[in-house]
C-alpha cells in the first residue's frame, strides 16, 4: 500500500476530530490552550476567525464537536468544548480594536436578506474587503432565529447584541423593519450580488381531527416562541403538551414552564435513543420537571363544548422487522388531558417572495431553490443562499460556515473570478519541541472528569423569563476542564529515513497505537495485524514509507492516540516529532485578480 501523504492538510485535519466535525472548522485545541494560559482575549479572537459568535454559540451551539471528541473514546465524556467558548467570551476584556475593520469601499454593492447568522457571517467577511453591504431584516433587531426562537433564559439579549454589533459596526447598512416581498424587485435595485439568509421560518403543521376547531389552544412551536419573545403571548394554560422532541420542543416546554404552565409533557413517537433533541437539552428540561413521554403518536385533538380538553394518542410498541427496520404496532390509545398543545415537529422553508420566472430554478419535488453545495450559488448567477434557507434547518454553526463559503463566492462573482475557483486550504506544521522532553504544550494526561455546568436555582429561574439558567464555568473549573483536552492538533509526525526500528515508540505507547510491520495489499487486513486491532474504521491509519533497515513500515492507528508525545520522547533519532498543526482555512479575499 502507498504511504500516507501527510503534506495534504486533510490528513492531519481529520486527526483533530473536533475541528473536523465542526462545520466552521474552529481551531478547538488552539483556543482551549489559550484559555489554559488565561489569554481569554486571544482565545476569543482565535475562535472568532472561524466562528463569529463565540459568546452566542458558547451557550447554544449543537456541539457537533463534542460527540467527535477523542476524549469521549478514551474515557466516558468528551471535553466540554462548547461552553469553553463562553468562558473566553465571558472573561474577555475590550477586544474591539482587534476586530476586523470595514475596508475602503470597492464600489460593489451586496444585498443580504435576513439579519440572521448566515447573513452576518457574509457581512463579516465582505465588509473588510470594501463591499457596500445592505442587510434587510423584517424585525427591528438583528439575530434572526437566534433572537426570536431561542429563549433568553438560554441566550441573553445582551450577548446577542454585542456579537451582532461587532459585525454591523464594520459598516453594514441595516434596513430593519423591511420585508423583502420580491426578489425581482430587489435585483432591479442594481445590487452586484444578493445573498438569501432568511432561514426556515415556517413551523410544520399537524393536521389531525379537531386541529382547526381548537385553533386558540394549538400553537406552532417557533411562532409561539417568537410571540413570547415579542411579548404578544404572556400566559399559557396550566397543562401543556408539546408534540415533538427536537431542540425546539425543549425550548417550548421550558418556556411554557415560565409563562404559567405547571404540568408540561413532551410527547414523543419513539424511544429515547431516537430523540432529535441533544441529550443535554433533554437533561435541562427534565431538571425543570418536564415529563418526557415515549412511544405516543398523536391521533386527534379532544374537544368538549368547543374547547380543547385533551389529546388522544396511540401507544406504540417498536420492534425490528426482518430487514432491520424499526416498525411500530399500536397497543392501545390514551387521552391525555391538557389546556394547550404546542407543535414542534419541524420547520419548512418558504419562498413566496421569490418569483419563479427570474432564472432561479426550484426543485419541483421539495419546492426549494437549487443551490450548489460548494459555491452556494443558485441557478441565477449572483444570487446565493446560505443558512437554513439553503437546504433546510440545520444548526447555527452551519449557518456561519455557509456564510464564510458564500462570501468567497460573492467576492469571486463581483471580481470576475469564477465562483467555482475556491481558495486552497493550507496548513502550517511546526515542531512543538522546546528542548529535551520539553514541549510547547502540556503533554501530561489529566485524569480529571468533565466539569458540571453550574445552574441557577430552580426557584429563581422561574421568577423571570430572562433569568439565564446556565451560569457558565468558573475560571477554576475552566482551568481543569481545558487540561482534559488531548491536544489532537499536536500531531505525531514521522520521518521514516531516521528510524532505526528500536521499537521504543511501539513499547512506550500507552494505547498500543503503533506497530512496525510488513506492508500489505489491503487496509482491511493490515488493520487486523496491528498491536491493537484498529477496529474503528472511521479513524485513519498512518502508513510510513519503507523503513531503512528492514523495509517494514511504521503504522499508526489514529483512533485513541493520546498525543502524549511519549513516542517522540522515547525516539532516539527524532524520527517521531510532535508538530503543531494549524489549518489555514479559505476565506473571501484570498484570491485576487
Amino acid at each position, binding site marked *: 500500500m502507498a504511504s500516507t501523504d501527510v503534506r495534504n492538510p486533510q490528513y492531519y485535519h481529520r486527526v483533530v476530530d473536533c475541528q473536523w466535525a465542526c462545520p466552521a472548522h474552529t481551531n478547538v485545541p488552539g483556543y482551549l490552550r489559550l484559555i489554559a494560559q488565561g489569554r481569554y482575549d486571544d482565545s476569543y479572537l482565535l475562535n472568532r476567525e472561524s466562528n463569529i459568535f463565540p459568546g452566542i454559540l458558547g451557550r447554544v451551539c449543537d456541539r457537533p464537536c463534542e460527540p467527535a471528541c477523542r476524549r469521549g*473514546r*478514551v*474515557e466516558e465524556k468528551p471535553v466540554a468544548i462548547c461552553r469553553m467558548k463562553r468562558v473566553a467570551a465571558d472573561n474577555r476584556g475590550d477586544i474591539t480594536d482587534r476586530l476586523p475593520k470595514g475596508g475602503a469601499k470597492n464600489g460593489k454593492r451586496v444585498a443580504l436578506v435576513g439579519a440572521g447568522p448566515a447573513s452576518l457571517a457574509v457581512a463579516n467577511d465582505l465588509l473588510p474587503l470594501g463591499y457596500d453591504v445592505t442587510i434587510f431584516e423584517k424585525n427591528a433587531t438583528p439575530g434572526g432565529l437566534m433572537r426570536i426562537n431561542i429563549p433568553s433564559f438560554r441566550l441573553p439579549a445582551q450577548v446577542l447584541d454585542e456579537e451582532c454589533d461587532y459585525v454591523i459596526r464594520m459598516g453594514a447598512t441595516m434596513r430593519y423593519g423591511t420585508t423583502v416581498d420580491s426578489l425581482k424587485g430587489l435585483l432591479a435595485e442594481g445590487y452586484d450580488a444578493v445573498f438569501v439568509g432568511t432561514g426556515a421560518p415556517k413551523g410544520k403543521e399537524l393536521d389531525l381531527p379537531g386541529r382547526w376547531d381548537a385553533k386558540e389552544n394549538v400553537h406552532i412551536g417557533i411562532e409561539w416562541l417568537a410571540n413570547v419573545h415579542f411579548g404578544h403571548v404572556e400566559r399559557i394554560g396550566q397543562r401543556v403538551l408539546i408534540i415533538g422532541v427536537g431542540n425546539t420542543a425543549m425550548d417550548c416546554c421550558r418556556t411554557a414552564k415560565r409563562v404559567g404552565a405547571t404540568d408540561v409533557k413532551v410527547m414523543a413517537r419513539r424511544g429515547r435513543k431516537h430523540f432529535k433533541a441533544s441529550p443535554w437539552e433533554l437533561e435541562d428540561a427534565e431538571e425543570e420537571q418536564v415529563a418526557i413521554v415515549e412511544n405516543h403518536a398523536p391521533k386527534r385533538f379532544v374537544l368538549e363544548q368547543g374547547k380543547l380538553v385533551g389529546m388522544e394518542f396511540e401507544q406504540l410498541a417498536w420492534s425490528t422487522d426482518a430487514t432491520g427496520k424499526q416498525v411500530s404496532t399500536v397497543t392501545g390509545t390514551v387521552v391525555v388531558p391538557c389546556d394547550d398543545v404546542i407543535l414542534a415537529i419541524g420547520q419548512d422553508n418558504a419562498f413566496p417572495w421569490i418569483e419563479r420566472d427570474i432564472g432561479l430554478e426550484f426543485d419541483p419535488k421539495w419546492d426549494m431553490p437549487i443551490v450548489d453545495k460548494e459555491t452556494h450559488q443558485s441557478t441565477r448567477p449572483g444570487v446565493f443562499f446560505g443558512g437554513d434557507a439553503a437546504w433546510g434547518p440545520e444548526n447555527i454553526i452551519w449557518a456561519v460556515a455557509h456564510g464564510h463559503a458564500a462570501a468567497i463566492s460573492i467576492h469571486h462573482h463581483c471580481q470576475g473570478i469564477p465562483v467555482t475557483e475556491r481558495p486552497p486550504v493550507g496548513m502550517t506544521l511546526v515542531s512543538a519541541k522546546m528542548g*529535551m*522532553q*520539553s*514541549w510547547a504544550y502540556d*503533554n*501530561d*494526561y489529566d*485524569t480529571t472528569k468533565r466539569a458540571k455546568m453550574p445552574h441557577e436555582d430552580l426557584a429563581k429561574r422561574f421568577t423571570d423569563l430572562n433569568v439565564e439558567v446556565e451560569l457558565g464555568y468558573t475560571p477554576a473549573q475552566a482551568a481543569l476542564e481545558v487540561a482534559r483536552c488531548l491536544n489532537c492538533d499536536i500531531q505525531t509526525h514521522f520521518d521514516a529515513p531516521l528510524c*532505526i*526500528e*528500536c*521499537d*521504543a515508540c*511501539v*513499547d*512506550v505507547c*500507552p*494505547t*498500543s497505537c503503533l506497530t512496525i510491520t510488513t506492508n500489505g495489499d489491503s487496509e482491511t487486513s493490515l488493520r487486523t495485524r496491528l498491536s*491493537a*486491532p484498529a*477496529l474503528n474504521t472511521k479513524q485513519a491509519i498512518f502508513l510510513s514509507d519503507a523503513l531503512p*533497515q*528492514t523495509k517494514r513500515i511504521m503504522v499508526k492507528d489514529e483512533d*485513541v492516540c*493520546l498525543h*502524549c508525545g*511519549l513516542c517522540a*520522547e*522515547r*525516539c*532516539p*533519532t527524532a524520527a517521531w516529532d510532535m508538530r503543531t498543526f494549524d489549518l489555514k482555512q479559505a476565506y473571501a479575499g484570498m484570491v485576487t485578480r
Partner: protein
Amino acid sequence: MTSIAKPPVKHPTARTNGRGLTLRDYEGAMSTLCAGCGHDSVTAALVQAAWELEIEPHRAAKMSGIGCSSKTTAYFMKQSHGFNSVHGRMPSVTSGAAAANKGLTYIGISGDGDSLSIGLGQLSHAIRRNVNMLYVIENNGVYGLTKGQFSASADIGSTSKKGEANEQAPIDPVLLALTLGCTFVARSFSGDKQQLVPILKAAIAHKGLALVDVISPCVSFNDHEGSTKSYAYTREHEVEAVHADFIPLKREITVPETGEEVRVVEMHDGARVRLRSTATDYDPTNRESAYAHVRACQARHEIATGLLFVDENGRDMHDYLKTVPTPLVDLPFEALCPGKDALGKLMDRYR
C-alpha cells in the same frame, strides 16, 4: 528519560488474560534508560511473555545486579518481588532465594558487564547448580553506565564510539553456557520480538537455568558503524538457527504449518515448544552440534540466534539437593529446624 509518567489509559479493546489482567497490568515504573535503549524492548518482551503466560505477579521474583541492564527489573511487573543485589551477585542471591522458596518464578536480569566480568564466576556456578530461573543477559558489548568502555563481550575489531578497536577476545555467554552444561541456551535480539517473546516464554517454563543472551544495542555508546552490536549490524548478520513457537499447556494455540520439519520439546509443566530449524540439519537437542554451529557462525561473522539448545531431562538444584517437594519457606519451623537433638544425631553419623 521521559517528562511524564505513562498515561493511565488503556486501549478500549485491551484484552485480559486468564487472570483478568491486561498487558498494562504487567508494566512497571517508567524507564529512565536512554531513549531507544534495547533494554526497554526486552522489558516490553518480558511484559508480553509474562502476560501471555498468565504469571501471577505476586508469585514472581525479579532479580538483578548492577548496570543499565539491572535497572530493567524496575520497569515490569511492579507487583512482583524483587532484589537488586551487589554487582555480579545476582546469580548467588537468586540461588539462595530459589533454595528457600522454589515456588516462585525467578526472573534474573543481568548485563554483559554484570555477568561476564565481575559476575562471571557467579554465572558459571549458577549454571552448574542449574538454578530454576530465567537468566537474561542484556548484551550490548559496552559498559553503558560508565560511558561506553568495551565489555567482555565486545568482538575483536569492534570499535568504540571514538573509533578505537577492541583487540581482546570476547567471552560468548552462549558458548560458555553450552560448555558448562546449561540445559536451555538461546540467543535473540531486542529488535525482534517475534523471536524473543516465545523464547522468553519457553525459558520461563523450562525447569532449570534458562540462559537467554539478548543482543540489546546501546543507542548512546554502541550503535555506530564500527559496532558489531548495533541495530543495523545485528539485523544484517543475524542467522536464526531455530524458530520457536511456544504452546502453553493451558490454552490451545494453533501455529501456522510451514511444511518444515518440526521438533516438539515438552517442558516440565506440560507446555511445549515447537522448534523449526531454519538452518539445514540443525538439531537443537544436540549440545555438540549447537556448539559447533555457534562457533561456525562466529567464524563467518554471523550471529547465531534462536533457541540453540534445550534439554528438558536435566536435573535442577533442588534435584541435586534432594529437597522435599514443599518449598522450604512453607515448612513449619519444627520441620525446618528440628533442634539440637536432631543435629546431634546427624553429627554422630559423621563421627
